[in-house]
């Protein structure tokens, strides 16, 4: 049978800011080559010209959905170099923000999953419910999307008292909605038929390719930086890591659903146990001694890490960002092989690839 090569993206409703070069035989994909790099912004180089505080807003930009997750390892690395211990209340607030961002990011994931399946209601509902958590983040951090909230030495400001009430309301509302999502979207027979057994990434392949985050957990590997290499106060909290052995597109969506549940439980625990006290160390000046530091956190898309080199000056010598999206990009040729063209968009979105994050 003759082959047809198809360039999907960068201007295609189902590609995002990247391109996938497909080779089709009939309706089946026999080869898929990802072509990223359309939204490279040089964040790493930019970071070498700005001081440690000025770096915070622009380093959030690659992942505006998950701004806290993107900036968390940076502040951890800076604090590690400065050798300071953050007040406990600030650590709790950081974790609350990180988990809120995980929910916001995962809801966006569900929404785009829906639109890639041609399901407009599945797009509108999560986007509408995302607003609840964006409002909550707005109450805590004073911004809707990019907060610039985490700073070396704590968080920028304390959260108001009404957060507890609002968070309870939001979590109770959304727990009910998650059950509805399961009934209407995840258990829809057409949705199951189209995603179950599609885009298989076996466990050995997932480990060999160095996949991270929900994609790895959907392939049956129980791996989460929050448990494996714990940071901040995660070791004091009680939560599960959802794992699925199905290795397909459906299980990737399911992992995201379950993680939202766990995140809500973490937020509730944090709000119950949050101590009083200062939220920021009184640092007159951010003075970073020479040295190297590496830190990683579990962002919404997986393990996100920073490698920071300081020469003792006002600006960092080198900031290296390793993003989960870029590490998951390698799976595209493997999971797309043998998939039908119609299943290309959900398979592609299943790994939660965020082009801006990968290109930095």
């Amino acid at each position, binding site marked *: 049978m003759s082959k047809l090569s198809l360039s999907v993206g960068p201007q295609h409703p189902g590609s995002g800011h990247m391109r996938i070069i497909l080779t089709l035989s009939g309706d089946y994909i026999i080869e898929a080559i990802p072509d990223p790099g359309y939204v490279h912004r040089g964040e790493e180089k930019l970071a070498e010209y700005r001081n440690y505080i000025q770096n915070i807003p622009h380093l959030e930009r690659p992942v505006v959905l998950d701004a806290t997750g993107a900036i968390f390892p940076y502040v951890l690395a800076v604090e590690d170099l400065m050798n300071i211990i953050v007040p406990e209340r600030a650590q709790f607030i950081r974790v609350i923000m990180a988990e809120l961002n995980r929910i916001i990011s995962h809801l966006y994931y569900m929404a785009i999953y829906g639109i890639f399946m041609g399901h*407009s209601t599945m797009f509108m509902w999560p986007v509408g419910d995302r607003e609840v958590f964006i409002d909550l983040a707005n109450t805590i951090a004073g911004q809707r999307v990019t907060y610039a909230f985490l700073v070396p030495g704590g968080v920028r400001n304390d959260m108001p008292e009404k957060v507890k009430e609002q968070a309870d309301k939001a979590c109770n509302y959304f727990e009910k909605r998650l059950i509805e999502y399961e009934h209407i979207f995840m258990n829809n027979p057409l949705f199951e038929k189209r995603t179950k057994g599609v885009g298989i990434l076996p466990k050995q392949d997932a480990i060999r390719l160095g996949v991270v985050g929900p994609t790895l957990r959907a392939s049956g590997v129980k791996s989460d930086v929050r448990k494996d290499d714990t940071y901040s106060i995660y070791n004091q909290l009680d939560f599960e890591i959802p794992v699925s052995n199905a290795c397909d597109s459906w299980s990737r969506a399911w992992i995201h659903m379950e993680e939202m549940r766990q995140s809500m439980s973490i937020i509730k625990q944090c709000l119950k146990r949050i101590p009083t006290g200062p939220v920021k160390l009184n640092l007159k000046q951010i003075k970073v001694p020479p040295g190297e530091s590496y830190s990683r956190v579990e962002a919404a898309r997986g393990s996100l890490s920073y490698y920071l080199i300081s020469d003792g000056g006002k600006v960092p010598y080198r900031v290296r960002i390793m993003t989960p999206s870029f590490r998951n990009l390698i799976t595209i040729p493997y999971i797309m092989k043998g998939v039908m063209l119609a299943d290309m968009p959900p398979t592609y979105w299943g790994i939660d690839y965020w082009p801006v994050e990968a290109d930095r």
Partner: protein
Amino acid sequence: MSKIQTFSSFVKRLIIIIVGLLITLTLLFSLLAYFVPSVKELQDILLSSFGNPSLMLNYLDQKGLGLNSLFFKVVVFPGFTWAALIAAEIIWFERKFLAKMQMRVGPLYAGKIAGLLQPIADVIKLVFKEIIAPSSSDKWFFLSIPIIITSIAAALLAVLPVSEGWIIMRSDVSVLIIFALVGFVPIAVLLGGWASNSKYPFIGALRGLHQMIAFEIPMLISTLGVVLLTGTLDLVNIVYAQSNIWFILLMPIGAFVFFTCMIIELERIPFDLPEAESEIASGYLTEYTSMAFGNLQLGVYIRFYAMAGVFTTMFLGGWYGPQILPNGFEIANQVIWFTIKTLLVMILAIVLRGVNPRVRIDLLLRMGWSSLLILSFVNLFLVILILQTELSQIFGV
């Protein structure tokens, strides 16, 4: 002149232009009337009909353009204008209804009341855009396909009985005519995709052909049940046969199969494979712009109305319904019932769109060839059972 800032100011400007043109033309026309005698006669009629509109109707009747003429039926009611109006408002309704399902507002501003004029605004926008044909496309075919698809859809209206006597063309084989026209649509889609000379439209067009294979045979066999029961291929006689009982009660399976096949034929979500947006850009619609695109959409929605009308005629008793208007308005009553039933069928088709993701082509073919085909045969056997036993006397068919 002031800047155009809102939709209402745009409409105002449009109305000013139209009124201005009308006044200018009337002045020119009345000048002409002094020199040409036949136009003088028309002007007399025009002037006198301001006082007595029936004069104008009589004049039109003389010329063969009156309310009972074929011209009126084709152009206004129950033909193209009526169907296009319903199509435009069903687009508005679909958007508003889906918005309610998805917990948002939907069209709001154009037309003050709940965005009622949004489809009109969209059409005006499309009309004023530039028609672009890709440089490597076969331009003649490329630009003729929208017109062909709209024409096929409008041709379906010809055999649709909206009420007793109000049908453009009564034929002994109107069911066959419908299937002949419906079978032509995928070929037009293929031609359009091929003429675009682009990969995504071509894949979409091929999908359209596959889709036809999936729906056409179950649809024909489920229709065969109706035809066997009534012994006629004439849609009007099929309606008469339902004066006692609607066929959806006699053969629910057949109605279900026909409805499903109808949705597949109309390429509506969840069966919108030929234009699957996230997979193949917009399928065979990808390269179309401006009113060429508008025509394609108009064709799809007129076909939607026509097929819902066919479903109403075959299974929901056509124009039959209780008398809600006073005596003397029987025809209007029938039209109202036909329209209500047709709109209900269309709403049912819209609900499907809100709750399902898109079907894949292999799943669709499997559904068409296994479940739908088997169900349509089961329906056929049930119909034969009704015919062979006393049941047909009981139901009076």
